[in-house]
C-alpha cells in the first residue's frame, strides 16, 4: 500500500506490518502503544479523537465553533470540484473541517485547544480553519486560557485561493492580540507541518514541541528537490533536524507528551 509506505495510515487486520521498518506487529499492541511502532519508533497518524484520548483529561473536551461551514467562494472547478472534495473528506474523517477546536482540561488545567486532522484535505487552511483558529485565540484571550494546538497541515488550501492565504494574516493578527495577555501558547507539530500554517500562527507559538521524525518546514521536500535540482540530505526537515537548527524546543514521543505538556503549562502559568 502506497499510503502505508509513507507511514500515514494502517490497514485493518489482526496483524499489521510497519510501513517503515517492515516489522510484523500485533495490531492490539500497536494501538496500545499510541500507534507508534514499538520496533522503529515511527509515529503513525492519529485521528483527532485518538489525540484527545491520548492527551486530555477524560471526558473534558468540549468542541466549539461547530456551526462554521465551508463555502466555495471561488466556485472552484478542477478535476474534482471543491464541494465534492469537502463532502468526501467529511465522510472519510467524520469531521466537518481540517481542525477541531474547543476547550478541555490537561492535568486539571483548563485550555483552549485545536487539533488538526491531516486526513481532511491535507489539514489545509481555508476560511473555516482560519476562522476557527481566530475565534479560538479570541475565546482564549477573553477567558484568559492558555492554548495548546496540535498541528498537522500541508498549508493553505488552494481551492479557496487568496481567501486561504489571507487566513495566515487573520490568524496571526488574532494571535498577536492574544499574546499581549501574557498567556502561554504551546504548539505540538506532528507529521507533516508545512506551508502556510507553519509560516503563520503555528511557528509563533511560545513553545514548539514536535513528534519524532515529523516532517516540518515551509516548502515540501518535493518542491525543494525540483527547484534546486539536488537530492536532499538525510533527515532533512525532520523534527530532529529542526531542533538541531534551533526552531523546535523539544522532540517528544507520544508516551511522554501528556506529562511534558502538563509540566510546561504548570511552569508558564505558575511563574
Amino acid at each position: 500500500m502506497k499510503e502505508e509506505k509513507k507511514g500515514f495510515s494502517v490497514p485493518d487486520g489482526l496483524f499489521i506490518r510497519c510501513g517503515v521498518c517492515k516489522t510484523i506487529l500485533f495490531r492490539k499492541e500497536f494501538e496500545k502503544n499510541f500507534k507508534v511502532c514499538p520496533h522503529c519508533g515511527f509515529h503513525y497518524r492519529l485521528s483527532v479523537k485518538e489525540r484527545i484520548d491520548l492527551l486530555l483529561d477524560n471526558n473534558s473536551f468540549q468542541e466549539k465553533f461547530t456551526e462554521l461551514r465551508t463555502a466555495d467562494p471561488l466556485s472552484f472547478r478542477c478535476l474534482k470540484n471543491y464541494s465534492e472534495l469537502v463532502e468526501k473528506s467529511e465522510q472519510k474523517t467524520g469531521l466537518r473541517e481540517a481542525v477541531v477546536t474547543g476547550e478541555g482540561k490537561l492535568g486539571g488545567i483548563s485550555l483552549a485547544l485545536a487539533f488538526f486532522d491531516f486526513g481532511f484535505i491535507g489539514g489545509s487552511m481555508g476560511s473555516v480553519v482560519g476562522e476557527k483558529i481566530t475565534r479560538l485565540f479570541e475565546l482564549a484571550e477573553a477567558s484568559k486560557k492558555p492554548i495548546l494546538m496540535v498541528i498537522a497541515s500541508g498549508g493553505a488550501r488552494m481551492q479557496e485561493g487568496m481567501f486561504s492565504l489571507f487566513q495566515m494574516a487573520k490568524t496571526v493578527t488574532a494571535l498577536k492580540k492574544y499574546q499581549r495577555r501574557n498567556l502561554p501558547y504551546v504548539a505540538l507539530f506532528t507529521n507533516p507541518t508545512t506551508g502556510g500554517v507553519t509560516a503563520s500562527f503555528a511557528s509563533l507559538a511560545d513553545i514548539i514541541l514536535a513528534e519524532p521524525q515529523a516532517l516540518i518546514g515551509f516548502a515540501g521536500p518535493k518542491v525543494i528537490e525540483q527547484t534546486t535540482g539536488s537530492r536532499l540530505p538525510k533527515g532533512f526537515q525532520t523534527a530532529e533536524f529542526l531542533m538541531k537548527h534551533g526552531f523546535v524546543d523539544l522532540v517528544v514521543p507520544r508516551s511522554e507528551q501528556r506529562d511534558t505538556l502538563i509540566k510546561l503549562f504548570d511552569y508558564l502559568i505558575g511563574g
Partner: protein
Amino acid sequence: MRKIYLSFESKIKKIEEEISSLAGKSKITPEDEKKILILKNNLQAELKKVYSNLSPFQRVEIARHPQRPKTIDFIQAIFSDFVELHGDRLFGDDPAVIGGLATLEKLKVMVIGHLKGKDTRENIERNFGMPHPEGYRKAQRLMKLAARFNLPLITFLDTPGAYPGVGAEERGQAWAIAECLALMSDLPVPTISIGIGEGGSGGALAFSLTDRLYLLENAYYSVITPEGCAVILWKEKSKAPLAAEALKLTSYDLLELGLIDGIISEPPGGAHRFPEPVYEKTKEVLLSSLNELLKLDRETLITKRQEKWRQMGVFTEGD
C-alpha cells in the same frame, strides 16, 4: 534593449517591427511618414484589442515579463533621496529584498520590496526575487525602524515566492515569514503595499499585511503558482492556464472578491511598454492613501487594520 514579446503579441510584434524598420531608414519619405502614422494607429487599436481581452494566465505572463518595471524602478521614479539599508544583522544581506529610507514628495517613508533582476545575470544574483529568511529578517529590521522613527511603510510585491531551498529551510523560512506578519499586524505607522508583478503566496504575503493593498492591473496575487496548482490538481503542468482561471488571481478578480483595495490601471500594452503613466498613478495612489491614513491616530490605525484582516474569509454559519 531588444523587446521581448509574449506569445499572444505576434501581431503587435509585426506592427512594431514594421514601424521601427520604416522609422530607422536613413531617408524617410513623406509616404513613409504616412505609413508610420497608419501603422501607429493600427498598433494602438491592436494593443487595445489584445490588452482588453486578456485571459488570467496571459496576465500572469505579463506580470512575469522580464522587461516589466521592477521595485527599484518604482523607487527611482516615485521617490527621491533613496538610501538603501542592507543586512539582517544575523546572517547576511539578501539581494532578493531591497529596502531603505526614501522621500515621497516631502514625506519621509520606509520602503521595502522584493527585487528581481533586469537580465539573467542580475536575476541569478537576486535569486529571481525569491527571498531567503535573511530577506524577511532584513525587512523586519526596517519595519521596526519605521515604527520607532514614525515613518510610514510602503512595500512593493514582486516575487514568484519565498525560496524553497535547503539553506532557506535550515534558517527557518516559515518563522521569518510568520514574524513579518506578526510585526505588521500592529505596526504603529501607516502601511501600504503595491503588487507590481508577481504575488507569489506566503513570500508576498509577508510584506502585505497592510492598511491598504493595491495591485497593478496586470499584477497577480495567488495562494500558489498556476503551474504548481496545475501539477497538484490536474496532474499536468500544461493545465496552468486552467489553474490560473480557477484560482481567481487577477487584480479584477481580487477586487471583486473584496480581497484588495484597488487597482492601478496600466495603459493598453502594459507597464513594460509604458511605465511612466504607471509610476505616476502609483504615486497618486500612495499620496492619497497616506493622506487618509495619516489623519488617523495610532490606535485607530491599528484597530482598523486588524478589523480589515479579521473579516477575511468566506463561510456559512448554521448547524
